């Protein structure tokens, strides 16, 4: 029977995985160490008003205000946004521009908080039983707690839960894949706080009025799988699955395909096939928000890389400068060739470490050495084609983009590219394929905007001409009338 199952897998049953690569994990650097909660409170916390996809939050405190831990500092604005809370008690000392954790490190409006060292919680609004709350109340509470996607996407979780409540969801998928090299914060979270994660999953199921959850954990994390399976034992509605270690297994559509066999249409969302996906760290944040009434004010961050002496997972207040984290872990700046937020496959390169940890920061990596990457001509080896999980032809897209034929690249699926980096990873000619695609995608957006603008101008000109014609016609008519 077992053989039959693996045979159907081999023959390309529903669990076939397309493309993907197997980068060196480097996870042993931090996977064996418990989450370190001993990080001392920093002198200052820097809280960018935009830590999520969507509109920036609007401050509701002013410079000089003293605040308690968990107190609202900035409220969400618009449909897609998330509020920001004080990570500890202290004083608001500034609302200013500070470099954002982004490759450009351009200054962004940032609230600066000086901790008083007491770490006093504000009064929290805790329900006695989350499951007695009406389902729609769950999304409200999650939204009010400022929870966003913790896997790095930083999409406001409440918006997703609301969306899920409106369209019928048959399965809630919980992503414990953590396929990026170096990162182990989800692994440790699942090992050490599996019950809380499972509780968060149950609360989300209640909020979605959905009967089934599937947790996917890559099979390179057997301890996390065991802990989660044990914690979920009492809840038959939660299935914990092992999935192959395979980048990009954390891509929602890859995991959806593997765990449910469903394929999301190109212009659709996961909810269109009745699935919603949240990260395990998000589930934990939901548990904290609804069960304990605690807003999202801290997170677990993997601090790793060969230029760090003591790589570890740290639980830190949001707003901590990355440089302080790195120094706590024995950072060797002179040996750091590259500083990353997130994993090496899809993470962002940072020009310096004076940027804060935000809600979506799952890793801070100081990489010591990187293979030299002098691009050579494409030899059409088609490794990129095999590696693409989406089924694109990266080499054809890149050659079109290089020749300035953006439309040609679109014909090969440029708009479907998820920038996962699998193609660049395998390319023996070291061609920066993702670089090309990101450039071309942004160029397309710019073109679209320009076209929109020129259409608007054209309409205005036409309107004006029509108006002038009308006036002229009216004048002519009046003259004709006068003459008559």
């Amino acid at each position, binding site marked *: 029977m077992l053989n039959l199952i693996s045979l159907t897998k081999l023959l390309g049953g529903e669990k076939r995985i*397309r493309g993907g690569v197997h*980068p060196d994990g480097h996870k042993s650097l931090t996977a064996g160490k418990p989450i370190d909660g001993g990080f001392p409170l920093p002198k200052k916390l820097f809280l960018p008003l935009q830590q999520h996809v969507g509109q920036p939050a609007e401050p509701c405190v002013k410079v000089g205000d003293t605040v308690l831990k968990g107190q609202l500092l900035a409220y969400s604005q618009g449909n897609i946004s998330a509020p920001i809370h004080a990570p500890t008690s202290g004083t608001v000392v500034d609302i200013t521009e500070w470099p954002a954790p982004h*490759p450009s490190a351009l200054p962004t409006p940032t609230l600066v908080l000086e901790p008083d060292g007491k770490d006093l919680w504000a009064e929290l609004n805790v329900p006695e039983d989350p499951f007695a709350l009406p389902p729609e109340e769950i999304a409200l509470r999650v939204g009010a707690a400022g929870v966003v996607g913790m896997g790095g996407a930083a999409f406001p979780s409440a918006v997703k839960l609301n969306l899920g409540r409106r369209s019928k969801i*048959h*399965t809630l998928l919980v992503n414990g894949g953590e396929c990026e*090299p170096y990162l182990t914060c989800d692994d440790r979270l699942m090992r050490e706080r599996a019950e809380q994660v499972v509780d968060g999953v149950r609360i989300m199921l209640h909020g979605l009025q959905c009967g089934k959850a599937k947790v996917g954990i890559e099979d390179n994390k057997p301890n996390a799988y065991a802990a989660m399976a044990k914690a979920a034992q009492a809840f038959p509605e939660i299935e914990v699955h092992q999935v192959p270690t395979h980048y990009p297994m954390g891509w929602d*559509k890859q995991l959806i395909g593997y765990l*449910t*066999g469903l*394929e*999301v*249409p*190109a212009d*659709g969302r996961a909810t*269109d*096939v*009745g699935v919603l996906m949240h990260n395990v760290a998000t589930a934990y944040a939901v548990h904290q928000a609804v069960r304990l009434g605690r807003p999202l004010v801290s997170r677990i961050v993997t601090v790793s890389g060969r230029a760090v002496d003591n790589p570890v997972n740290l639980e830190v207040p949001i707003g901590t400068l990355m440089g302080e984290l790195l120094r706590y872990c024995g950072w060797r700046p002179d040996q*750091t*060739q*590259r*500083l*990353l937020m997130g994993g*090496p*496959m*899809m993470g*962002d*390169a940072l*020009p310096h470490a004076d940027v804060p940890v935000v809600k979506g920061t799952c890793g801070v990596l100081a*990489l010591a050495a*990187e*293979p030299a*990457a*002098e691009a*050579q*001509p*494409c*030899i*059409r*080896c*088609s490794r990129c*084609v*095999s590696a*693409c999980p*989406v*089924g694109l*032809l990266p080499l*054809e897209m890149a050659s079109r983009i290089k020749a300035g034929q953006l439309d040609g690249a679109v014909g*090969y*699926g440029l708009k*479907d590219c998820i*920038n996962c980096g699998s193609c*660049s*990873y395998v*390319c*023996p*000619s*070291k061609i*920066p394929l*993702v*670089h090309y695609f990101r450039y071309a995608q942004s160029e397309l957006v710019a073109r679209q905007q320009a076209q929109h603008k020129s259409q608007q101008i054209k309409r205005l000109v036409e309107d004006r001409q029509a108006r002038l014609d009308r006036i002229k016609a009216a004048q002519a008519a009046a003259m004709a009338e006068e003459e008559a």
Partner: protein
Amino acid sequence: MNTRNLQSGPFARAEGGVGDLMRLVMLALAPATGFGLLIFGWPALLLLIVTLTSALAFEALSLKLAGKPLRPTLWDGSALLSGWLLALSLPPWAPWWIGCFGAFIAIALGKHVYGGLGQNLFNPAMLARVTLLVSFPLEMTQWVEPAPLLFPHSPGLLESFRIVFGHAPIDAYGGATAIGLMKTGLTQGHSPAETLAEHFSLIPALIGYTGGSLGETSELLILAGGVWLLHRKVITWHIPVSLLGTVFVLAAFAHLANGERYPGPLFHLASGGVMLTAFFIATDYVTSPNSRTGQLIFGAGCGLLIYVIRTFGGYPEGAGFAVLLMNAATPLIDYYVKPRIYGRDRKGRPLELENSRHDRR
């Protein structure tokens, strides 16, 4: 801290570059080449050296004329590999100018005219081989019987220089390939069985102790190299399997239908350049399709053409022609055979939602 390379990720790269791939292919060719040099002696070694050095020289010259830097491309192994493959497909005692002219066609006309590495439509080595075959049919079909190095009847070094660089005594050329004899035999009214009985036995043919091109005779050593390349993931199974499979199936069918007229599949697989073509030539990245399905079609097309040319064509061996013809078809295959994009149907339209799929779970 170094921020010189600040750009998009990924910031991890698989090991191995273009040069590494080329080196692995050459390593995989080494056993069959070594065997060829052993059984065909000094002249074969001289010819190989001529072909390799002239391939490098024409590569350098072409790069210089194109105003490109020499260093990265000259030593990435691609020119050396083209020269090497060409040498393996030549008669082992061919005169020096065959190797030199072949290298010119392969490198200058086969590759750099199109814009250099990665731009060419045709496999350089096969382009050279076919051009030579059409232009110099006499020199290109003078086969020798194996004359292992240092054996009494094998030529010494001095005589080898005369064979390759001067005018060789004609009686040195004694042999013919089984596949050529088969063709001749058929035209003279001999059945394949007669020819096979007289000139072909499977085991020596597989080991390669027969007349033939410099590096094509030992099917077993080539197969071993090819399997090793598969194991090292330098090539995938798609082209070799579909090529060899097609030749096998066609030959088996024809042989079953009329054994008097058509030799069996093992003869086809064990003779000529079919094995080298399947693993080392048709699998050339640049000139074969991108998608796995496209590669299956490409391999099958090569196999079909090899069989058809060998069986019905005017030349005893069809591998070179077959590869070139399929090279020409590669852009077409790539145009029509693309992987299906996630979330879209084969025509590129977004998938439609099927409600039935929801109920299944």
